[in-house]
């Protein structure tokens, strides 16, 4: 029970954590005029990794480079570039690593397939274990022989004499 409460607390904290990050990026956005463009900037920035602080998006990060890249994205939105063109601009310079959702291809196969593969392996092991267990129980539980059952009766009578 205690553990559940802790987990809930942790989840709450992490949600609030991202919430404040959104807010700080939003401050900057508020200075710009076009709300539609800013919304696109926000969405794109959340898809792009900041290479300086590698576990933050360029929306969350306040690193110099993240600021520069947000400026670039904003400029490209103003120029009327599509989302794909903007993402490609980043990938050409920084590689797939800049994407928070890297594309499925040879080198990222383990990344995408790994969890599913591990789950399948787990299911396979579980199923094998359960089957063996059933087999073992079946072989071990044979009906009592006449000798055994008379002994059992005698023992029961000893505990519970009528």
């Amino acid at each position, binding site marked *: 029970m205690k553990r559940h409460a802790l987990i809930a607390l942790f989840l709450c904290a992490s949600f609030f954590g991202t919430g404040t990050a959104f807010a700080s990026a939003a401050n900057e956005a508020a200075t710009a005029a076009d709300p539609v463009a800013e919304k696109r900037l926000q969405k794109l920035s959340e898809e792009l990794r900041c290479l*300086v602080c590698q576990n933050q998006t360029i929306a969350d990060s306040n690193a110099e480079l993240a600021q520069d*890249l947000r400026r670039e994205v904003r400029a490209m939105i103003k120029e009327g570039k599509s989302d794909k063109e903007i993402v490609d601009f980043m990938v*050409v310079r920084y*590689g797939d*690593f800049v994407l928070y959702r890297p594309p499925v291809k040879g080198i990222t196969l383990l990344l995408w397939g790994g969890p599913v593969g591990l789950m399948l392996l787990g299911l396979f092991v579980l199923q094998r274990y359960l089957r063996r267990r059933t087999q073992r129980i079946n072989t071990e539980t044979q009906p009592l022989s006449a000798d055994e059952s008379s002994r059992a009766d005698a023992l029961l009578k000893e505990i519970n004499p009528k």
Partner: protein
Amino acid sequence: MNRYYWVLGAFAALVALLAIGLKLNPRDVPSPLVGKPAPAFNLHVLATPEKMVGPQDMQGKVWLFNVWSSWCVSCRQEHPVLVEFSKKADVPLVGLNYKEVRGDGNFDMSKMPADDEKKLAFQRANQWLAQHGNPYTLTVMDIDGRVGIDYGVYGVPETYVIDKAGIIRMKHTGPITPQDLSKKILPLLAELNK
């Protein structure tokens, strides 16, 4: 008993995997620019500000392109290696001074006019080279960091090896150690200059 060996084996494999992971450098992100033409630019030269230079001017030569800045602490660590290199090697070493003023973090850029920033950047870069020695054939000034973005710079210092056809052949992130130079960079330069 058999089953415990299996668990032990799996655990050992996990430990080995994590040990390898610990030894990898997360900063070493493979650059997609390797094998691609060096992005074009046209920037002012530090020593002769009226002149502009770009990769097109280096065609036909194998050259090193080193990103540096006076505020970059690791550059100071790398600098003696570059000075040594420039004394021995007959390979042009071009410096890219990256965001000399606005990258420093000690200036309020919203209050500084562009002209002042430019003047200060040239002054600071010149002073730093005078103080620590100048290994560069020439340095170009990327004052707003726009060229840095084209080269995928995310941590100064970074170094690119560019071949005679203007193709980037190697990118090194972080300070160059004497080992990096002798084991990686010099052999590649020798091969490209054949």
